[in-house]
């Protein structure tokens, strides 16, 4: 095969890959063609073709960057949101299924709809505190801390929650706001009278974890420990944000990775545990857009 034939074959291949949406592969083939041309005396003079290939490479680079940067999820229709809600709820128990559906909506970045669903669940749930926390998290993920505070004020003035639960939620709200560096005026509630013990808060028997420290098992950052605020919690599965800027951590935190040391911080203190990474996905909207949400299932 002559060099000219090689270039022709490479360009044809590159064009098909481009049409197939295999942009990285197309770029590689265009580059290969360009390289052959630059080393061939006869082909070097074909300036028009070289310019054309260079233009195609520029276009591909732009497309690849757009794909990488395209983090905004499309505005999902009501139908699709309903489909997500129904398709990703598997429990037979009505309430558990409703929570699964709302959590799925949140995971797909549909925080407004998820918040609406959680609010409906709040009307009948046996776990109002856990649901309320997820509503607050949804508001914060849509960059609406004011809405979170507004809703909290509504709860504080209503009769859905006991006084102890409101105090607990207030502490939670303040904690998550502080961890995000948000300063908002949260109406401070008075605590229980001195010497009295607040009623136990029913929260699905789950410990509310506000942040975790993680020591990695392997990789170049073996002793690396970091404070991760918890974004979502459902039972013993928590979701934390890993900044995209921490490329090494983003790279090594993969599905199935064991985390032998997880320090959990909660309102009642510090607990040492372990866990497994069960998911990692790019955050598509909200204040954490572009970062990665990592799901960690904590061991019992």
């Amino acid at each position: 095969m002559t060099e000219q034939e090689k270039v022709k074959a490479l360009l044809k291949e590159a064009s098909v890959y481009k049409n197939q949406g295999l942009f990285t592969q197309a770029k590689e083939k265009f580059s290969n063609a360009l390289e052959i041309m630059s080393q061939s005396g006869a082909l070097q003079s074909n300036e028009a073709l070289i310019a054309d290939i260079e233009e195609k490479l520029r276009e591909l680079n732009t497309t690849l960057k757009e794909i990488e940067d395209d983090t905004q999820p499309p505005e999902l229709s009501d139908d699709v949101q309903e489909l997500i809600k129904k398709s990703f709820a598997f429990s037979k128990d009505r309430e558990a299924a409703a929570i699964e559906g709302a959590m799925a909506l949140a995971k797909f970045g549909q925080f407004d709809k998820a918040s609406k669903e959680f609010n409906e669940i709040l009307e009948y749930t046996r776990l109002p505190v856990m649901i309320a926390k997820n509503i607050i998290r949804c508001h914060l993920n849509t960059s609406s801390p004011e809405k979170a505070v507004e809703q909290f004020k509504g709860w504080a003035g209503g009769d859905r929650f006991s006084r102890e639960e409101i105090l607990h939620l207030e502490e939670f709200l303040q904690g998550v706001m502080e961890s995000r560096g948000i300063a908002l005026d949260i109406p401070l509630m008075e605590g229980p009278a001195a010497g009295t013990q607040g009623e136990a808060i029913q929260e699905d028997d789950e410990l509310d974890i506000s942040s975790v420290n993680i020591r990695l098992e392997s990789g170049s950052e073996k002793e690396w420990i970091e404070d991760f605020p918890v974004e979502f919690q459902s039972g013993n599965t928590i979701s934390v944000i890993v900044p995209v800027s921490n490329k090494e951590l983003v790279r090594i935190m993969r599905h199935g990775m064991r985390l032998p040391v997880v320090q959990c911080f909660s309102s009642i203190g510090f607990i040492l545990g372990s866990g497994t990474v069960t998911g990692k996905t790019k955050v598509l909207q909200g204040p954490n857009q572009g970062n990665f949400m990592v799901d960690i299932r904590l061991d019992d």
Partner: protein
Amino acid sequence: MAIFNAQERVIECKIVFYGPGRGGKTTNLEYIYKAGRKYTTGEMLSIDTKGDRTLFFDFLPIGLGKVKGWEVKMQLFTVPGQVKYASTRKMVLKGVDGLVFVADSLEIRRKANILSLKDLQDNLKEEGKSIFKTPVVLQYNKRDLEEEGLPIMPVEMMEKDLNTRLKVPSFAGSALKGTGVGPTLKRCMELTLKHLRKDLDWAE
């Protein structure tokens, strides 16, 4: 996880199209939607992003009519193939009853096929399922590109790469032209229903 409604005698199953990014999963569903209108029971929903890449999933509901006195409905889903959407793939895979693995026949996608199949195996394991005990059908897609003189893998090579241990039915195809799409889905549905019948004794 098929849903049985004994009162109305309706069974609803979930089939997921899995495979590497840009391998033709969505094109399979599009073809089924266009060519099998008499079976579809609703619109096809796609949630894609820049460059027509699947962002969350595609969804197509189809109805098979009555099988042994039961109304059989199938929900067809695709997963996003891009590596970065691992979490979404896992979610879509939840409750799956049958799988179509759409492999890309292009030589340059050989490694992507193998990695995607491994990803599928891992994700099923996470769900407490074995790939060897789940109804799976392989489709070697984009065979039509051979006509354009592009380097594609021989079917034998793909069989060796992907089906040596699985030993499941496989079909050469071109989702763009519709070749092999029907037989792939049909076989997957047969295996899925057979598996459900065996597992749950639903038709007895």
